[in-house]
């Protein structure tokens, strides 16, 4: 693992001039209509957005603030959505810095963080204390994918355990497109949440296990349907852990190519179905994948794609990431509800997304405000449309 250089981190943190642009900037020319979803959905003290979080981080690291769980609360009350990084004028990445601060301060007790990590390390998922259930969806497919193939569908914990319909839809989609693919017998978690919450060493051990499993499958291409898995496997593993990964591709990237090349054709979804697209932070701001999902949606006959007030690089977060959904579920759902309201304002019937983790939280948000809008993964939308 690349060691965290504390001097370098402190220098980066000192780059913040406390201008406060990371709070609620409304900058129409660049599409920003608010920045920090935590600030917006809490009492809004300075501790809620990045300026205050960095002040706390510096004080903790310099020993001016006692290293207690209470004093680190603000560091974890953040979805690491990166909207602050997008608008920050300074030459550092505040979101990335906060992530590193969590790692440096990982000796400060945090039950939620440690529980998640222990589960992942012992049961290959962050949700339950045993390994049962993660692969149950395969039995409902009506066919048994092999465990070795050139293409691996790395389905992820959330699709496997929380939204099995999405996992099934993804697998059926691949079969319908004539793609031979494998599914691991005992898929390890990508460990994204361990990286985000500061359990870096454990995350590295886990990453090696993931890579080993992928190598054993013989896959040259790994398909993912989760934006978190995508960012973790494609970007974090090589950059943070120096792991050489095979090609990591998201479903929307993969299927857009198939549609463009004419290998698959899509039937109409309906007549004038208004859909809006929610940009997952890990896919958009982290990897710059903004147009592919939109292009795929636009390729569906009968779909009218409408944009939310904030979209692409300025999109507000669903509130699930960075460990926030586990750390503060109520806040996480409030943020999701806020995003659902934004979607409702477009008049869309469906919020499409490309991340089961976002989908799960957006559904919670919709429920919180009794919204009738449908939250759907793009995979779910197109699975029955292949001609």
């Amino acid at each position, binding site marked *: 693992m690349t060691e965290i250089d504390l001097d370098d981190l*402190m*220098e980066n943190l*000192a*780059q913040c*001039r*406390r*201008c*406060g*642009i990371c*709070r*609620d*900037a*409304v*900058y*129409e*020319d660049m599409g*920003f*209509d608010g920045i920090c979803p935590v600030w917006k959905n809490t*009492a*809004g*003290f*300075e*501790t809620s957005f990045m*300026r*205050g979080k960095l*002040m*706390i981080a510096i*004080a903790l690291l310099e020993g*001016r*603030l*006692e290293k207690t769980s*209470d*004093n680190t*609360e*603000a560091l974890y009350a953040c979805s690491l959505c990166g909207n602050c990084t997008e*608008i920050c*004028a*300074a*030459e550092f990445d505040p979101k990335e810095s906060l992530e590193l601060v969590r790692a440096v301060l990982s000796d400060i007790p945090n039950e939620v963080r440690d529980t998640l990590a222990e589960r992942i390390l012992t049961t290959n998922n962050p949700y339950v204390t045993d390994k049962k259930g993660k692969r149950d969806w395969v039995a409902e497919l009506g066919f048994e994918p092999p465990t070795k193939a050139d293409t691996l569908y790395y389905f992820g914990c959330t699709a496997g355990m929380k939204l099995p319909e999405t996992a099934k839809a993804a697998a059926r989609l691949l079969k319908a497109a004539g793609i031979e693919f494998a599914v691991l017998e005992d898929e390890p978690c990508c460990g994204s949440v361990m990286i985000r919450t500061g359990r870096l060493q454990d995350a590295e051990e886990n990453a090696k296990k993931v890579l080993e499993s992928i190598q054993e499958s013989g896959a040259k291409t790994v398909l993912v349907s989760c934006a978190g898995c995508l960012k973790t496997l494609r970007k974090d593993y090589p950059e943070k852990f120096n792991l050489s990964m095979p090609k990591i591709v998201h479903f929307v990237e993969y299927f857009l190519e198939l549609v463009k090349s004419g290998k698959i054709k899509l039937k109409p979804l309906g007549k004038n179905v208004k859909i809006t697209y929610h940009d997952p932070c890990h896919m958009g701001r982290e990897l710059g994948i903004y147009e592919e999902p939109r292009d795929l949606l636009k390729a569906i006959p009968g779909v009218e794609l409408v944009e939310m007030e904030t979209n692409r690089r300025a999109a507000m977060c669903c509130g699930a990431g960075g460990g926030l959904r586990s750390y503060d579920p109520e806040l996480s759902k409030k943020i999701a509800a806020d995003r659902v309201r934004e979607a409702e304002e477009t008049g869309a019937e469906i919020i499409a997304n490309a991340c089961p983790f976002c989908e799960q939280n957006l559904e919670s948000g919709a429920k919180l405000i009794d919204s009738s809008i449908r939250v759907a993964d793009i995979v779910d939308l197109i699975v029955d449309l292949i001609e």
Partner: protein
Amino acid sequence: MDQRIVDELARIVGNEFVSTREDVLLTYSASASTGYESVQPGAVVKPGSTQEVADILKVANKYKIPVTPRSGGSSLQGEAIPKPDGLVVELLRLKDITVFEELRSVRVGAGITFGKLDKLLNQYDLWVPIYPESALVCTLAGNVAVNGAGPGSTAYGCIAEMVLGLEVVLPDGTIIQTGTEGNPNAPGPFLRYAFGPDLTGLFIGSLGSLGIITSVSVKTFKRVHHFHYETYGFETKQQAERFLIELKQNEIHALFVSIYEGKILDFFMDMLGEEYGIPKHEWPALTVSVTLGRVREDQLKSDIKLAKQICKQLEGHVIGIGELPKGEWDDRMRTFARSSYAHGWHWRILYHHQPPSNWHRSIEEIWAIMDKYHLLGHTAGFQSGHGSYNYYPHLYFDPQDKEEEMKVREAHKELAQRLFKTGAVPFKLAPYWIEDVEEMKDYLNLIKTLKRVIDPNNIMNPGIFGDM
């Protein structure tokens, strides 16, 4: 802070909106004012209405607790740094906006930023045509409390010139409304100078020392869509200064005008030249960067022609590079903050005004100080109204180098004293401007008297004017 007082505050705003947590207090101990000592308050409270502000001040007054009003926390000269164990009243929950189209005005709560208002007014094809450098962060109320300026000020002056009325909560909890809205039957804000003395002006630039501004009513204007961006070259400072005066004398509607000395322009080019797409050029000794803007195209054409003519009469030349002023204008909501990021570490800034004819005196003193203290820094500025030019020299320091920071503070103070002697005037009545200045004794005594009458317990931002 005494728990009984905290409980009283909680009864006003609810438990959720008052905090004495150590981490929260730490984050309110400072603002964007780097280079100032942090001071930890005793509590932070976030009222959701003017009445709550009034009730909070009644409590503060009863217990004689020093109060620091705060909104965006983006001020750069220590205006919102609290007192030890004091109370910070953060106003960002006051978010009402009412547009009065026929009155050509808008009223905004103290939590509304320029960026948010600008987006809303754009729907009406209107704007408040002044953009402080922190427009995405700072609120109109906060900007009025410091009497700020920014791009747009060349044509329209400082923010004070926009203000039609204020709602202010006095230290004893009394709520007053100035301007036409003082009459509850008035249709809204349409005239500032109503009912006698200009009480509105009393609170502008008062830095929260006389009360808390809870809402601001300002003028709106039809949004300008016809722009022209041009640079004009001169060989002497006097020519460039005269050019600014003549632009005003001839009613040329320049929204943003800056004079750049050669080496400062080089600095700027290093920072943002490439991003703004400014071509390489052998710049003259003095460059005047001008954004012209008019509602009507025929007016703009006339301005362009006349500006060129004046430039030539002063033996200058039209450079023909519009990317510099265009970049400045398009990036106006954040360009200055970006400039500091691009080149500096933390900074001390010393806003002040000169008449354009005295532009060169500030430059001379700024360079002299930087040379004397061997500091990194730069200065920029813009014409800021009828007959003034707003300067904002930056003095940079490495935040991890305490010695350098102290040197910057010392230099900052000496620069203020030197500039005062050149005839410069500050936005704010900071101690480093007026300390030991015998000539302003009577003026200061009047302010002290006003402060004593309005705030006998001296709870409102005490010390912000120095020993007053």
